[in-house]
């Protein structure tokens, strides 16, 4: 159940790009939305690892 909730959060964050779809402020030289997507990606990878550990 907790995995299902976390995956729902992941996809919400993926589609959340439209809410933060801008260039400024640039972070580490990256556009804001690109930086945001990298964070979502890191969360997604952590989630896949968590799935393997928990199941």
């Amino acid at each position, binding site marked *: 159940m907790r995995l299902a909730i976390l995956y729902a959060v992941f996809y919400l964050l993926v589609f959340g*790009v439209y809410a933060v779809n801008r260039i400024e402020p640039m972070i580490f030289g990256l556009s804001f939305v690109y930086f945001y997507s990298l964070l979502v990606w890191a969360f997604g990878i952590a989630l896949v690892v968590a*799935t*393997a550990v928990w199941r």
Partner: protein
Amino acid sequence: METWEITTAIVVVYCAVCIGIGVVANRVFRRSLEDFFVLSRRAGLIVVFLAIASTYHSAFAFLTSVAVYASTGISFWIAAMAWVITASVWGYVYGSRVFLIGKAKGFVTPADLLADFYKSEALRFLTAVVMALFIIAYIVVQAIGLGIILAIGSGGHISYQLSSLILMLVAATYVMIGGLRAAYWTDVLQGVWMYVGVWLAGVIITLKFFPHGIPELMSAVKSVNPKLLVMTWSPEMLLSCIMVYGVGLMLLPHLWIKYYAAKDTWTIKWSSVGTAIYLSSYYIPTAFVGLAAAVLNVTGAPGLKAGFISSLIKSFGSRDAVMAYMIYHFTNPLLAGFLLAGAAAAAMSTLDSFLGATSLILTRDIYQRIKRNASERELIIVGRILLLTWAFIGWYLAVLKPGLIFDITAIACAGGLQFLPAILQAIYPERAWLNGRGALYGILAGTIVTSLLAKQIGGKLGFPIVFHPAIAGTIGLAVNVLVAIVVGGKASINEEYVNILKS
């Protein structure tokens, strides 16, 4: 030696190694259909992980991701990281269950499972035909990629058509000699080669033009075309790409049968983790090259004319050649040969599995049903002939330069997506909601709708409303589910499958 001779020689050496692996695989081959196609179900973690990862990533990842980054920017990354994570998790969920059922019942093809679960030979036939037809799009994609790689790597001395044919025949040869065992083994080599290659290419090419690294590149992109730094794809395109590339692609037979080949569910579970990391991180260096190409296409650079992408489109029918072009012209010849061989590895690691899978499903699900007393030796020979036939069909269509790899790949994956309702019922049999009739008509309706709505098929047939194939596939899935439920009617629980999955 001239540059093109060095790069071509390295690609030739790479091809020789692949054929050598095919010969070795042939020596350990146990002369049974099960060993020829699913390695007697004994593949361990490294083989399964690299076979799935390198098969998933193809000319699509090495070539077209750069091309799409160059035209639409980071939109590709946002969608791609979501669909590869989806693919990894979905691969684990359905792969483990498909493995358990396949092992318990001795299945080799996707149609084996669906036909048995729904007790329908018509469904077996439809599954084999639909998969074999949609696979052609994927074979075409690899043929295009291989043609681009060797044509550019040979400095234009070998034509696109001949380059494609030569490398297609290399892949067909080692699969014919060593079966899918050769494909699995070469996948391991290719998976490492293409990953190292893509990162080297990404870092070297980026630093060559933007020595201060990513901030300098991003700043240049911002000044040239700021839209490349934000999401420009619509939500429905994002959703459709996740569905088609994340779910549909995993349901195509070349990946499906890799789950049959695994030795246990632990292997599948941890290969999914490796796959998620491998597949998503692969798209980071290609973003560097794609965005760099977008800038250089406007500004030009020493040895590179502004507008070079347009001339590549004229030569190859799409912008897919950007990556190979930049590798050939902006890295030293030895490295260019290594990197282009890595690009060839990306295409061949998928092509070999597709050729093997196609010959498998046509042989087992159609030929063997027509000629029931065929010996295993005869089936393997027929499989090899079919493998070669599909390779030639793919090559012929690639010669016509049908367009961007990204779009053509979506056609094949959209076809794979149409099997989602049927497989979901089979791997979650505890609740009955779909019967054989519903599955059959659902797949049929979904496939027809997808084909008609896909720009590359429906558009050519004169259908008035067409979409990108990814969106067409998602609409097709919706129609598929609707038809499956309405036409199917009452379904009953398959106790045998419930027990297999429980045990």
